[in-house]
């Protein structure tokens, strides 16, 4: 007789054992299945002539018709360029801003002042996009806006900023930095607290000045956090915020302001061209996925820091 081997508890037994936990997880699971995974399979309509009344099961399959339509669309190039450039400028100017602010805050010796600056700078993060867009529009108004009043006061001609395509990207990026720079310092400041203070002591003994300490201790200490956030942000370059563009753009600035998100909205929700809009969205979603995968790969090779 062989002594019976210790059995790994059967799957069914384990399910039974975590029955209550599974039940607790059920609402969450249903949420993800219905609102995240069902739409992922819903992208199938981009290969169909989707008809609201026929639904996904009865609509006619048309293969890559809508993808081809998009590639042949004269707006194709403009949309990709606008989305990419807006995201790119937002990354180039928006990414370093909180790092710089965190470094400046880190040098403050009086804690009360540091906390005051932090508290104030987090505030705009909690204001709605509609309010921020409203403020931008009002302040830049050519007739009554404070910016143009100031320009008149120093003898400049008023400019209708929001009707001029060449200002759109600057306005978008600047207002984004204004709104989120403070909030984004939190994660860097958290990384700074984990740096061993003895390192600074040792550096001071070696005669390193403030700037040298920043370069050789503070920045390397923040590096893993910076890299992780950079990968995430590179992956999101094309996920330009739909809301703010939608609220700030107008036909006069489509030339630089119209991005994939707004085009998908007009094509799909407004004109009811669901298949076409989904095809455009899916195309960009896949490029985003490739981007984040690529950024992660590069980072793993160079710095051994990666998301997965």
């Amino acid at each position, binding site marked *: 007789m062989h002594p019976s081997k210790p059995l790994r508890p059967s799957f069914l037994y384990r399910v039974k054992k975590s029955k209550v*936990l599974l039940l607790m997880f059920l609402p969450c*699971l249903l949420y993800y299945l219905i*609102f995240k995974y069902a*739409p992922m399979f819903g992208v199938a309509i981009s290969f169909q002539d989707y008809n609201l009344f026929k639904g996904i099961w009865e609509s006619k399959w048309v293969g890559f018709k809508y993808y081809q339509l998009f590639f042949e669309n004269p707006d194709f190039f403009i949309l990709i360029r606008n989305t990419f450039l807006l995201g790119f400028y937002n990354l180039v100017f928006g990414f370093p801003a909180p790092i710089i602010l965190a470094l400046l805050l880190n040098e403050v010796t009086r804690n009360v002042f540091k906390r005051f600056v932090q508290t104030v700078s987090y505030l705009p993060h909690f204001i709605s996009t*509609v309010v921020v867009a409203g403020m931008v529009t009002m302040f830049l108004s050519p007739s009554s806006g404070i910016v143009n009043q100031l320009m008149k006061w120093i003898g400049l001609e008023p400019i209708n900023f929001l009707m001029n395509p060449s200002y759109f990207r600057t306005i978008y990026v600047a207002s984004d930095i204004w709104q989120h720079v403070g909030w984004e310092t939190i994660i860097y400041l958290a990384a700074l607290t984990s740096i061993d203070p003895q390192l600074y002591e040792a550096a001071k003994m070696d005669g390193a*000045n403030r700037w040298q300490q920043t370069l050789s201790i503070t920045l390397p200490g923040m590096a893993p956090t910076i890299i992780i956030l950079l990968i995430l942000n590179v992956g999101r370059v094309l996920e330009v915020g739909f809301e703010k563009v939608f609220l700030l753009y107008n036909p006069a600035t489509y030339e630089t302001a119209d991005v994939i998100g707004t085009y998908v909205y007009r094509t799909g929700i407004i004109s009811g061209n669901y298949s076409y809009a989904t095809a455009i969205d899916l195309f960009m979603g896949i490029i985003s996925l490739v981007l984040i995968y690529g950024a992660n790969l590069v980072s793993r090779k160079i710095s051994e820091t990666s998301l997965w």
Partner: protein
Amino acid sequence: MRNISIFQTVNTLILLCVVVATLYPFLYMIAVSLSGNLYVLRGEVWLWPKGFNLAMYELVLNDPRISTAYLNTIIYTVVGTAVALTVTSIGAYSLSKREMVGNQFFTLLIVFTMFFSGGMIPTFLVVRSLGFMDTLWAMVVPGAVSTWNLIIMRTFFRGIPAELEESGRIDGLNDFGIFLRIVLPLSKAVLATIGLFYAVGIWNNFYQALLYLRDSDRFPLQVVLRNIVLAGQINNSNVTSIGGDNLIIEESLKFATIMVSTLPILLVYPFLQKYFVKGVMIGSVKG
């Protein structure tokens, strides 16, 4: 030493500029919305209200569109926060238990949605086919779980000592009982943080309303705000009701509208500020 003190001065000045750049727009809006029309027209209001009056606020509060929208937003926020907090906390608790069957699979399922989504139209079609269009549920359910908040909470629950939960098991509680009686009372701070995050998110939500609500009686504040401030739909009956020489300054009215709809955020901000930094820190620990 001298070198450092110059640096400190410059640094302090730069940070003061950040403070001014952040606060001035709000102070300016408050000043203009509280000032007399004449002073605003002449461009004399910079920082402090001149010819103090509350006329613009009276107009805003008497606008039926705004009162309806205010009520709608309050309902969406209260119901939405309750639903989101319930689903997220019980979901996060079960995910925090490594012994749950399929834990890793579920985590992967959830994290993947951070990198890829079906996009605007398929989600819209799902919400539409559920019959949520023009209902409270369109504002509440599609955003009920934020992956970020879920992960913050899961990380927090993992930090609760297992001994505490074991004592509950000895007393004969099941997993749900332990969650309710032992874990929740220990989690007030994280619940407050995440609850406030959700509440602010729903209060500010414009996207879902734009996509899923067509009936103007159901519009939340953000949509009405956009119609008034950005699309310039000022209620004419209000303007004429004041009548006579009392010229309505569009600008003051719009600023007053912005302030009225942002006030609740500014009021809860001190509480938010007290908890949220801790919340973000918890989440930043790699789980």
